[in-house]
């Protein structure tokens, strides 16, 4: 553990030092393959699941980057490699200028203070044998010198109250709480080390609908008060839109479109983003007749054998021969400030005869 990392905690409400232009986290060409089966001796390997296949993005102080895409597209794997729960296959990630993947074990421990994670399953992510107070205080036991022992219970109470639970809950066991309350406890633990970044992997998907908003609001409130940056992973595009400043759309281990929330949701240029957005059900029974919806045919290709060229081409209604030969680069083709990886990217979907043959509905209303 680095000595300099153990300065005492600032009060919980304190704002962080002013943001510089330098991004807090910079991920460059991150790759994570899971080898299939047992690796024998030379050449016996049977290929690999290409869970993350060259992902780059930046995260600034105090901002929320939403990560969306279908199940298995690599969202969680990114979170897990950034948290060093998995070793990356290649690539780099600079956190405040230091390469996360090149750090020594001790330096990683110190870094844990600044990057934390909230998990999807509120029922499995708290140790059933520890009391809530012990769970929240554990980071201070591990990183000694941050909060002296005699102040820990005071700090635990403050954290509990910060996430909307009474201080007396410190003496209860996790199984005594509902899903939403457990997620609050998970948030309190993540806050204990006063991180700069919290990676939230589907933090509300396991919660009851009527409880999701409570947790979403809490996350937003904490961000404003503490200047946190979030990487917010979710498959629910409505939740992501609500909480994110910027959004990255992933398909088969790659980012296919990235930009600020407004750009992605009102002017998507990648066919995959357009299809995803048009498929989201809206709580608007009257508007449903006017909605045109792109219903993709077929299924997501296997991450073991991704298609050549553009990985979306097997489901894309705009695919041409170039799409199977040449992988489209992530580029800002319209100077909208949000790059997308499609040879035929365009902010509107134009009804063509070709499309009429391959998809059920052709147009997407922009700026509904």
């Amino acid at each position: 553990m680095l000595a300099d990392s153990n300065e005492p905690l600032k009060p919980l409400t304190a704002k962080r030092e002013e943001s510089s232009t330098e991004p807090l986290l910079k991920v460059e060409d991150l790759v994570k393959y899971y080898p299939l089966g047992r690796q024998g001796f030379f050449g016996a390997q049977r290929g690999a699941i290409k869970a993350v296949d060259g992902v780059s993005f930046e995260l600034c102080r105090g901002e929320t980057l939403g990560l969306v895409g279908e199940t298995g597209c690599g969202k969680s794997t990114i979170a897990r490699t950034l948290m060093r729960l998995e070793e990356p296959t290649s690539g780099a990630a600079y956190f405040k200028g230091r390469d996360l993947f090149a750090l020594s074990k001790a330096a990683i421990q110190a870094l844990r203070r600044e990057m934390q994670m909230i998990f999807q399953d509120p029922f499995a992510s708290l140790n059933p044998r520890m009391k809530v107070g012990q769970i929240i205080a554990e980071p201070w036991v591990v990183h000694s010198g941050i909060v002296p022992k005699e102040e820990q219970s005071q700090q635990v109470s403050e954290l509990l109250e910060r996430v909307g639970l009474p201080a007396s809950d410190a003496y209860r066991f996790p199984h005594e709480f509902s899903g939403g309350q457990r997620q609050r406890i998970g948030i309190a633990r993540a806050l204990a080390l006063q991180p700069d970044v919290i990676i939230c992997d589907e933090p509300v998907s396991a919660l009851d609908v009527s409880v999701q908003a409570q947790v979403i609001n809490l996350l937003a409130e904490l961000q404003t008060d503490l200047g946190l940056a979030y990487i917010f992973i979710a498959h629910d595009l409505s939740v992501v839109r609500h909480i994110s400043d910027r959004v990255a759309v992933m398909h088969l281990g790659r980012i296919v479109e990235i930009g600020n929330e407004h750009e992605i949701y009102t002017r998507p240029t990648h066919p995959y983003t357009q299809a995803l957005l048009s498929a989201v059900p809206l709580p608007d029974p009257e508007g449903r007749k006017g909605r045109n919806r792109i219903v993709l045919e077929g299924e997501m290709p296997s991450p073991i054998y991704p298609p050549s060229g553009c990985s979306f081409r097997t489901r894309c209604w705009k695919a041409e021969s170039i799409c199977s030969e040449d992988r489209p680069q992530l580029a800002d083709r319209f100077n909208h400030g949000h790059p997308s990886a499609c040879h035929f990217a365009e902010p509107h979907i134009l009804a063509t005869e070709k499309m009429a043959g391959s998809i059920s509905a052709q147009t997407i209303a922009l700026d509904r």
Partner: protein
Amino acid sequence: MTASDRAGLRDLEEPVRLITARSVLGALLRDRLMLFPLLFLVVLAVTAIGADFLAPHDPFDQNLRLRNLPPMTASASETSKFPYVLGADPLGRDLLSRLMHGARVSLAVGLSSVIASGTIGILLGLVAGYYRGWLDDIVMRGVDALMGIPGLLLALFILYLVGAGFWNLVLVFALTRWMIYTRVTRGMTLSFREQPFVEGAQTIGCSDSRIIFRHILPNLVPPILVLVTLEIAIVILAEAGLSFLGLGIQPPAPSWGRMVATGRDYITNAWWLITFPGLAILLTALTLNLMATWLRTVSDPTQRWRWFTGRSEQFHDPETEIVVPRREQSSRGSMDISTSPPGTAADVHHLLEVIDLRVKFRTPYGVLNAVNGVSYTLNRGETLAILGESGSGKTVSAEAVMGILDSPPAFVTGGSVLFDGVDLLLVSQSRRRRLCGEKIAMIFQDPLSALNPAYTVGSQIAGMFQEHRGTSKREAIAKAIELMERVRIPSARERAQDYPHQFSGGMRQRVMIASAIALDPDVLIADEPTTALDVTVQAQIMELLAELQVETGMGLILITHDLGVVADVADYVAVMYAGKIVESGPIAEIYKRPAHPYTKGLLASIPRADQKMEYLQPISGAPPNLQSIPSGCPFHPRCAFVVDRCFVEPPPLYKVRQERSSSCHRFEDVMHAS
């Protein structure tokens, strides 16, 4: 966060926070089954420790005049004034005293051996399970190798090498029993290391040893304790076995095993010699076995309360004693109260009409009121969405309609289900089964568990025709393939030969749909058909269902928690909360102007993909525990409109206007509130 937030959900597993001598004693007095074993163990422990003072005679004191003295024979020995209560052994030593000293020896062998083998075994299991890889390989090879050799043979071999004796015995047991712990510990460590809470510990920077000993090990305590207690008994018995062969504790030291071995030779003329030590071994083993189950409960903080509150024993509920799926209701409510929601005037003939359906679950820990009066109607070609959170009773009410509830624990305690005018709850079981396969079909959230993994999907769909229509196998298969094409499964002919696990989630749901529509049902109940699927696949499935509905004119009941999905497809919606329909009516009207605070709250609390919302207005609190549904209006602890009468007076289903109803005393205020 309000106080009511917490009030609702904690009472299910209200913990015993203070474990006092009094609460332990109270629980023990209630649980006689545990009281006696515990007392026995205490006596045993005291005897073993204090044998020197407690034993009436010197266990080594031979008196050849008293050889094989029968029990209860008062005998004036010259060394002691005590009688020989259990008699004497062939060397004239007092049996009781030897038994008491034997307790010490046997328990010492048992405990020491278990501590030794347990420590080795658990450590190896933790390390193998946590680090996996080559460490795991080596350890597990060792385990497999040792498990392959009969333990007794190995023990004999080692004892032959090192000779008998207390510590050698412990060594033998350590070497021959550690694998038992390793196997259990490793398996559980493997699964625990994947748990999010272990990963959470990693993310805050816990060291490996802290994770192993602080996070994983405590979770293994209950099963390990069970194992340890059982192993003590096994070791005591095994020592007896070795003593038989002369390899146990060496004479003259008294061990129970040794005593049984000696007693065997005199079994015909001095029965007490083998009976009493045998009984001691038997009782100890039995006691330890009883302890094992008990320890599992009390060493687990999530289970402990059960023992302390004695709820599992005492639960008894008169309410579920009345199990009447009979129609004895004419209590259809008073004048302005509608019991026939979406749909219409009561005299119209509906395809499906559910009236005041009630279902309870009888569980060991109390009665669960899962469905508390659900009514709705469905007509041909209509889509009715049942909207509610998890646990609100959507699935249970649908399964009650289908007649596929497992009873027990579920009991339909009231109501009727009219299909084409016939009450399904009153017809014979066989007629019902036929109706529900053919006329009413259902698909589930998790098609994998609804499909049989052992048969190809083609033969499963074909089975519908063979079973209900008596179609020949060949023809049925042809029809199955036709259906698979109809639900747009690519290369249907080939895929019909595949097994369910070879399909993706979306395709599996199509298979389910194919088999559900096989017999042209009039009603299709779809229970969260797309919840486990991605939006892209969800859109495909919903589109398919809509098309099929247009083609066949069937009525569709769509069960979901997703307000968006409901808005996209439903004609009518029924909102469920705590086992009740709280609001129902045409979808557009309800979304525009909800008449129940819960619906209103839900609509205000969900984010939307088509607009950036500034702020979500959450509903406070959490859904209630169905074992203790709040009094009056079940929503009152969370309601923004709550008034005094809501605490006591359950709101009936008020008729809001044509086709609309709401179960809220203040529905008018709710509708007119901005």
